[in-house]
């Protein structure tokens, strides 16, 4: 709710597309334009980060991450959503609302899965991920966590490797899906 004013106006939103695959990037860019918004080249100053997540979701999903990168607030949309739905979802997420799409197939009765130990993040890596979500640069993350720039870079690289991501926004999107699917109440 920290940033409702811009979304309430009719103006187009600046959407940063986080995808390493150039084909997916081109498709998402066209989709954003079709929905009446701008695709921008940097996560800095973008209103929304848009990414496509393939795994481990049961099907492709669009993840919409609001400014501040709070994964709990990220929206999730079926990959075959209409451009009108994308437009509505982008505006809603920018206004601090939760977006979920009902046409996603239900998850089904599933087994308790323990993820591979080598893909588990350390508490420090989770802290770094949260900083990335707030849009902080490596330099600012180093200052925030009181560690060296070299150490931050080390953690970011390790994050990318464990999550299979190539960009910061993609790492956020993948960890959002993991958080959603991998948190279990006892």
């Amino acid at each position, binding site marked *: 709710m920290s940033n409702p004013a811009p979304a309430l106006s009719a103006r187009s939103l600046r959407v940063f597309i986080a995808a390493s695959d150039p084909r997916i990037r081109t498709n998402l860019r066209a989709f954003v334009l079709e929905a009446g918004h701008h695709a921008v080249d940097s996560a800095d100053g973008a209103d929304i980060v848009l990414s496509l997540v393939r795994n481990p979701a*049961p099907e492709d999903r669009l993840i919409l991450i609001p400014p501040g990168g709070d994964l709990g607030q990220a929206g999730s949309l079926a990959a075959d959503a209409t451009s009108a739905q994308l437009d509505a979802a982008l505006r809603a997420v920018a206004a601090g609302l939760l977006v979920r799409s009902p046409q996603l*197939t*239900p*998850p*089904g*009765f*599933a*087994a*308790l*899965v*323990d*993820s591979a*130990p080598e893909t*588990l*993040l*350390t*508490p*420090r*890596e*989770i802290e770094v991920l949260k900083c990335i979500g707030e849009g902080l640069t490596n330099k600012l993350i180093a200052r925030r966590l009181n560690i060296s720039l070299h150490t931050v870079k080390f953690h970011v690289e390790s994050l990318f490797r464990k999550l299979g991501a190539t960009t910061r926004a993609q790492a956020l999107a993948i960890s959002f899906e993991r*958080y959603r699917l*991998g*948190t*279990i*109440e*006892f």
Partner: protein
Amino acid sequence: MTVTPGAQRAHPGFLAGSPDPRNLLIWRLYFSVDEPMVDVLTELSNHLSARAASAQALVAAIKLADDFHATGTLWGADILVASEQSLPRREEFPVIAPGGASFNASVVGRDRGTNVAVLRLAEPLSSPVIVQGEAKAGTLALAYGADGAGGATARMGIVNLAGPEWLSSAGGRIDKRIVLDIRLSAGEEGGPALDVAGVCLGITTFGPRGQVLVIPAATVARIVPALLRDGRVARGWLGFALQPVAVPDALREEAGQASGLMVMSLAEDGPAARAGIIAGDIVLGMNDVPAGRFRALARQLGTESIGSKAALRVIRGGIILSIEATVEARRPG
């Protein structure tokens, strides 16, 4: 290709004059060119349709909306078993019984852990006999659903996998992992899966990606009495949501394990919160059993754990400490 009439071939020795009925099918195959009226496919088809006709007495449609229903399997004269995930949270559903009569059925209990729901019919029906059996990979399987008008829909395939016991993500113990090489439509979920002898392997349910699983008859038979008695299956509960994390390198040796479960959120006034557990703590184990993985913890929180003390070994701020909580029964909902 030329077809040689069977009668002109020499009889295989083992068939000659044998009265063994098991050889009848082979006889018919062998002479099928001469006697098309008894061909094996027709016979197979007739048997299948007879099975479907008798399976009709096992299935009832549970109406979810005007055009939607789920299937319930008649487990007793007035007891209907369904796939828990297929039923919206309601107390009562209209049901179309075998033959087409309408009844109301009330939900007696549901267990997300094993994905079993039990409904009681307003009036008992003639009780079908369910014979429980074990699935074996590679055997033929017949799955039936309710057609919504009192009849049965039928599917045939084979048992794709009959594996060991497993734990569901909701913490239930399922006696066997059974996957069918069968597709189902949504309305057929919850119907019986039978083998060719008519023995019930369990009830069908959708797994991830539309895969068709069977909740084994042994699991249903274990859960139904508990649901009839208590309306739920009590499981141990500590009231925190956990996410697996890697133990920081500096603590790995002292912890004796490489992974733990980080507390992401706490149920207000739940056992963990009252014991002083806070978000960010990393749970390493419970009662001296390492719990670096979900499964290890889930196994310790069965019915018998309720009311017991749980000594939790946690990492907080770089230090390993022990915190004692009292396990409660999971709150409904």
